């Protein structure tokens, strides 16, 4: 439970059994993947009760829609985390909309948040980007991007900032930020698609 599960075949089998309404398989799937997925939700949403709600909804979705997992399209862990990430981002957009009119300093949620911040200082997105790609081809490809492109990709991925939030954060016009993201993703894709040493592809 403490390590990122690498056994894709096993996870794919658990998903197939989950699709067949095997609750024991679903339980094992949760045990193997929930710590990673909770980390993902928490990183985006910051507050544990929001991340818990998203995690619950995500696993209920996974239980109901395990049959729609297409093994040919993505690795099981990628599919699972896409369910969580999508829900977390949707929730974040919803929350930011309602938070705009309220300045949260210290209410119940605020206090819990401060506790968490105190307990676990959040890593800088750029740092996470660098740690994540250690030894990967992706690192080489990220290296081909301009600094603002790389920075906006990291902020978007790890902190869930939207185009307009990025523009505010980076003090740049919206059009410029959109272009950074678009060109950054384009370059990344092209670089990843070039034939390269298989070992570096992870």
């Amino acid at each position, binding site marked *: 439970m403490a390590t990122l599960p690498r056994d894709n075949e096993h996870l794919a089998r658990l998903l197939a059994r989950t699709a067949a309404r095997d609750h024991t398989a679903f339980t094992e799937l949760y045990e193997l993947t929930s710590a990673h997925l909770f980390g993902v939700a928490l990183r985006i949403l910051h507050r544990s009760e929001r991340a818990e709600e998203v995690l*619950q909804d995500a696993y209920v979705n996974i*239980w109901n829609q395990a049959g729609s997992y297409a093994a040919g399209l993505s690795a099981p862990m990628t599919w699972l985390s896409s369910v969580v990430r999508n829900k977390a981002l949707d929730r974040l*957009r919803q929350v930011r909309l309602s938070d705009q009119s309220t300045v949260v300093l210290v209410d119940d949620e605020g206090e819990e948040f401060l506790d968490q911040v105190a307990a676990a200082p959040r890593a800088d997105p750029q740092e996470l980007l660098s*740690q994540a790609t250690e030894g990967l081809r992706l690192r080489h490809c990220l290296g081909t991007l301009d600094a603002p492109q790389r920075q906006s990709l990291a902020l978007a991925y790890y902190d869930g900032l939207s185009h307009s939030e990025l523009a505010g954060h980076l003090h740049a016009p919206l059009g410029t930020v959109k272009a950074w993201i678009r060109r950054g993703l384009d370059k990344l*894709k092209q670089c990843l698609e070039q034939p390269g040493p298989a070992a570096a592809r992870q």
Partner: protein
Amino acid sequence: MDYERSPLLDQLAGAYVLGTLSRRARRRLASVAERSPAVQRALAQWHERLAPLERSIPQVTPGAHVWQRIAQRTQPVPAPAAWWQRLRRPGWSAPALAFSLGIVLTLGVLHQAPQTLGLAPIATRSAPSYVGLLTDASGEPVLGASSLRRGTVLTVKLLKPLSIPAGKVAMLWALPADGAPVPVGAVPGSGKVEIALGAPSDTVFATVARLAVSFEDSAGAATPAGAFVLSGHCIKLW
């Protein structure tokens, strides 16, 4: 429009997975993806490309209560035994069974009132259930729905034919008191249908104040695009 071949699709899919799209754009792309394998593929490819970035996010074990709530919402709940099945439990001697059956049958017949709509199984006393009666714009009842409190099936009966426009699907929605409509399933233009719920009624309908029907392009719609043509209160009976 051949959006499936457009380079714009790939850009949108990348921005979606990265997380930079606005709420509205996210929802629109997600609803297009439900019907388009090309969009699903573009999204899956971007998820796969960016997946390694998750490696550095610290794992956090969620509290035990999280799993308990998930299990509550996913554990298959056995459908409540019908009265005749309850009688077959061990411990009932044959004469007692026959005697009771006689009484129960008599009571059952006495209680088969004509207004039961033939929806949920009715024992001698109606079981706790959720019930909805949906009317059209003129207030005419068109659709009845009911589900046992702990059941996982919603029985829907058309009380009069509903004319569904060609190429459209009539979708039933649960409208929570405080939240977005939740799709329940497709309903036919006439007759009766049983819709399997993803969870027991108690979970699905606990906060649902109203039910409504709209015409959609596909049964996979996540949010109602059309206007509600039928609607009514969803009440619990116990």
